[in-house]
């Protein structure tokens, strides 16, 4: 609907992004931090992958490295066969708390990536996206005039406007109230189903991960490691009320147990 949607059937098994033995150390005032320890993930084309873990488990470090914003101490990240060492036009990042520029109105915020790439903004695509997320008519509003949910919807439009094939989302809805969060989760599921983007989504909410993901990469902290990878084969589209079904709650409990029972 929004873009050439890659047929999810034949793409099911092709690998979109590869994290290969990623390790990251860095120095702080209080000593060295071992943020990531030999993390390997194969992200499938068109997949919705959630990185789930407690704070300090290195999931943000991993995501920022996948965006080409951080270097790794060891290992590598590839998009297809291309090594990611700097930001890539096929990969767009959605940040915590929307990260809109407060001195620009909504329209000019969305034009930012085009300005940076020295391209003319794709008005048709932008208008379609704005309409899709329900922000039509708010183009002249400034970020502080918009609610948190609207701001995050604007940032989703900003990222999708340049039509990347991979969306990296760094706890995008963490600061929203529960009601708005459900709404945003539904929206991102719909957008994902319509566009066939590959989405890698960070969260520390187990139920958010189970609601959204095809696969959940459960991580443990200090050093950041993969504890488990869980498939979520709930049928789509998943309605908000699925979160109260016994099957859903069982899955959440199972993951919770995994995290609780890991020796640290």
């Amino acid at each position: 609907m929004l873009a050439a949607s890659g047929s999810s059937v034949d793409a099911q098994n092709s690998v979109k992004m590869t994290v290969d033995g990623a390790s990251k150390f860095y120095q702080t005032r209080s000593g060295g931090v071992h943020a990531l320890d030999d993390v390997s993930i194969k992200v499938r084309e068109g997949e919705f992958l959630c990185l789930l873990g407690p704070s300090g488990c290195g999931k943000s470090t991993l995501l920022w490295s996948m965006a080409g914003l951080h270097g790794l101490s060891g290992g590598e990240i590839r998009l297809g066969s291309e090594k990611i060492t700097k930001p890539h036009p096929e990969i767009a990042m959605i940040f915590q708390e929307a990260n809109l520029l407060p001195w620009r109105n909504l329209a000019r915020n969305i034009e930012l990536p085009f300005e940076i790439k020295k391209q003319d903004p794709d008005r048709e695509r932008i208008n379609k996206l704005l309409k899709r997320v329900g922000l039509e008519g708010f183009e002249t509003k400034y970020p502080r005039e918009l609610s948190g949910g609207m701001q995050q919807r604007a940032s989703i439009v900003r990222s999708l406007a340049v039509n990347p094939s991979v969306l990296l989302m760094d706890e995008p809805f963490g600061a929203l109230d529960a009601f708005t969060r459900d709404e945003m989760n539904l929206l991102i599921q719909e957008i994902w189903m319509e566009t066939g983007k590959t989405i890698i989504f960070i969260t520390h909410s187990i139920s958010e991960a189970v609601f959204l993901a095809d696969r959940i990469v459960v991580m443990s902290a200090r050093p950041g490691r993969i504890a488990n990878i869980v498939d979520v084969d709930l049928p789509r589209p998943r309605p908000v009320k699925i979160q109260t079904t016994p099957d859903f709650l069982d899955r959440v409990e199972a993951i919770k147990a995994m995290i609780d029972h890991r020796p640290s």
Partner: protein
Amino acid sequence: MDSALQDKIPTFGAKGQKADVSLGGGMSSLMSGPSRSAFEIFIIIMVAVVIIGGTELAIRLLEVPLYIFPPPSAIGMALVTEWPFLWPHLVTTLCELLIGFSIGASVGFVLAAVITQFPFAEKIITPYILLLVTTPMLALVPLLVLRFGFGWEPRIIAVALASGPMVMINSATGFRRVDLAKIALARSFGASTFQIFTKIRIPMAMPMIMVGLMVGSIFGLLTTVGAEMVGGAEGLGNRLNYYSSMIRMPQFFAVITLLAVIGISIYVIFFLIGKKWTSWES
């Protein structure tokens, strides 16, 4: 300059409900726009009339000698009668201020932008900037006069030296306000260092840059007038010396009035620019 700075900010301010800009908080109460009622305007005018009229009356009743404090009417008359002789001096003062401030402010701005990128260099340079900020540049004028004579050069140099460090120190504060997430955002779209500077760092620093420009220009005005008094054959500062030595107090106060108008105009100009460019910051 970044096109982001030309943002039209149509909604705020126009409603008269926006929060104060970081600079000129006092001004916004005077200039809150259309929300001001006719009654408020009436009161403002009445208070001004009462103050000026009261001064006039008090001076006449107490028979204060003209050479101590002339009544407002005499000052007004002097302004009108001396205007043909005063305006060339006004132009001189404004030119010196404009040229000196432009040089000082540009150097200060560029230095702030460069220096904040290198924390180590910043540590080395900051004490010297503080020295420039705290030392009255007027003190240098006699020295500059020895080198350059009584022309405009010493005054322009002094103005640049007085306003530049003010602009620099405030802009540097602005440039130090880094928001890593916003820089990462620009980088994630492939922004170059220069694009990050023009699209993120400058707009982010703009409120403090505006404060620096305002303070720097007021300092520039003070230094211009002072330098003209110390070492100048022309300009409003020179006129102050001239009229006071002749004990022509109404004319003296007419010059003071002109200087006050310049100062307030500078304030208003930067207040309005600041309101337009920095209203996003609440």
